[in-house]
């Protein structure tokens, strides 16, 4: 309502407001709980998993779920529960690195394009458009196939196809910010382009990109799983959910559990990230943030 002086830090203030809105949205809470569980599982995977995720024991292959093997065993006699739990680490690692890499590429390209405008903007944005012209999964497959299938290359391939969103977002933000009087004031004080761009414009683009990153984390898992499923992603024996679903394809009729459990985990974590992402987007909606 009125703009009187508030005595608090913007960060704490933001946090308090966010907590206030968070408590009002049940779906966001469910999303957050799923993600927290996911993070805990990944953190304590070696403690939770009862067996080694990679050790083969053909004498117990293709066993149905039981108390001994909660999710059953696969065609090599590996405990699926242990593999699914350990697979969460792979997924988390991919999410983390892809977010950092694609976020940084996107923000630097976007801010440069938005801040300078003109020909720089034109060139950088047309490059971005080229990446956007292909369906991202197809492009990721192409890159993964070209680079060779392994964990590092999966991460690179997904990063290459996903920075575009952040570039466009930070470009828009940079265009908005660069014409603000507080930036003009620095120019009036004699600040140069690089100083203004990196010290004053870029920091303003970070939070919208962070929000978008959370929104897209579900997609990252899905892309990684798809690559894994197609054999273009993480290679065996490293447990990866997509590859595990793919492993169970041939046994789907009689040994449903091999594909089903990793599939359920993919579904839940993606759902968790999507609910959380939607919630965060709503929380940052200026109409609610008054």
């Amino acid at each position: 309502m009125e703009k009187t002086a508030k005595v608090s830090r913007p960060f704490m203030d933001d946090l308090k407001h966010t907590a206030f809105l968070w408590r009002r949205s049940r779906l966001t809470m469910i999303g957050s709980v799923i993600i927290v569980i996911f993070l805990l599982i990944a953190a304590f995977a070696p403690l939770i998993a009862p067996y080694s995720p990679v050790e083969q024991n053909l004498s117990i292959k293709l066993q149905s779920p039981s108390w001994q093997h909660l999710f059953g065993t696969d065609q090599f006699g590996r405990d699926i529960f242990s593999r699914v739990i350990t697979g969460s680490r792979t997924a988390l690692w991919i999410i983390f690195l892809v977010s950092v890499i694609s976020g940084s590429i996107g923000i630097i390209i976007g801010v440069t394009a938005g801040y300078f405008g003109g020909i720089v903007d034109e060139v950088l944005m047309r490059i971005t458009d080229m990446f956007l012209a292909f369906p991202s999964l197809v492009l990721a497959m192409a890159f993964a196939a070209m680079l060779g299938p392994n964990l590092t290359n999966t991460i690179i391939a997904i990063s290459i196809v996903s920075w575009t969103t952040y570039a466009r977002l930070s470009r828009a933000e940079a265009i908005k910010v660069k014409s603000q009087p507080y930036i003009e004031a620095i120019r009036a004080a004699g600040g140069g382009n690089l100083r203004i761009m990196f010290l004053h414009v870029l920091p303003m683009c970070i939070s919208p990109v962070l929000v978008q990153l959370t929104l897209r984390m579900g997609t990252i898992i899905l892309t990684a799983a798809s690559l894994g499923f197609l054999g273009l992603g993480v290679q065996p024996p490293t447990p990866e959910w997509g590859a595990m679903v793919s492993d169970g394809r041939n046994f789907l009729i009689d040994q449903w559990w091999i594909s089903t459990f990793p599939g359920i985990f993919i579904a839940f974590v993606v759902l968790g990230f999507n609910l959380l992402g939607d919630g965060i987007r709503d929380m940052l909606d200026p109409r609610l943030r008054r």
Partner: protein
Amino acid sequence: MELRGKLLDVSGLKVSFYTYRGVIKALDGVELWMDSGERLGVVGETGCGKSVTSLAVMRLIEQPGEIQAGKVIFNGKSLLELSEENMNRVRGIEMSMIFQEPRSSLNPVMKVGYQIGEAIAKSKKMPIKKTYPEVREMLKLVGLDPDRVMNSYPHELSGGMSQRVMIGMGLATHPKLLIADEPTSALDVTIQAQILELLDELARKMGNAVMLITHDMGVVAEFCDKVMVMYAGNSVEYASTVELFERPLHPYTGGLLLAVPRVGRTDELKAIKGTVPDLVDPPSGCRFHPRCPRVMEICKENRPPLVQVEPGHFVACYLYGNEGEVKENA
């Protein structure tokens, strides 16, 4: 209870907004009244609640805000007790409103003529097409060329023209009361003068009352018969315009008038020390006491009620021997 105003009488109005910072008591016992055909100026600074008051009278307070207490008697009806359906018959028909940003109050994708027609169609319950002759009359009345404006979209009009359209729309249903919320604040002075002149002329012709919400003392002096001064969600002083400018009683009103610059004034402007209070945690007693140059002990504890100290001059201040206090209900 006897009504102070024949057309509109607002008493004890309280509105709060629920935010993460706590409850903002935007209005805390607002008093306001008007007679038919009168022009009342509601003045005050940012956050005093003048706009919220107008929205509350129209019952347009939305989440997270809530009208918590008070009475709004308009034209013999108690508005806060009406059903939403009946309120809809009052809103835009017996009482209408224009806003500060005329362009954002018009629908950008509909032609201007259609939008005014819609307002008339609603009150007369007739098809929009049939209202067009009346719409053209209305446009002429607000000084626009119907041939040009009927089929224009809002973005084709300037700020001043859009405000004329808004006024036409507001008055098309011959309401008894037009609430104008800072109608000229976004406009240039020469256009402001045109719009005030138009409001004045139309009010004379159509006999409607005008509640003009503004922060500009100059606009009040030029346009209004009566003035209500608001501060931090309270009504603090009410008088006729001449009386108020000549003999302001409340220290806040006095301070405000001394702070207003005007052509021909080169002496030091006097500011009111301090800042507007935070309405999450307003000062105890009189809301103005921390900034008041004439504060007394009683002001810090009790909140003075708005009482008549001279014929037609009401003030909420203990300097004038007001006994009693406003009941604070938790």
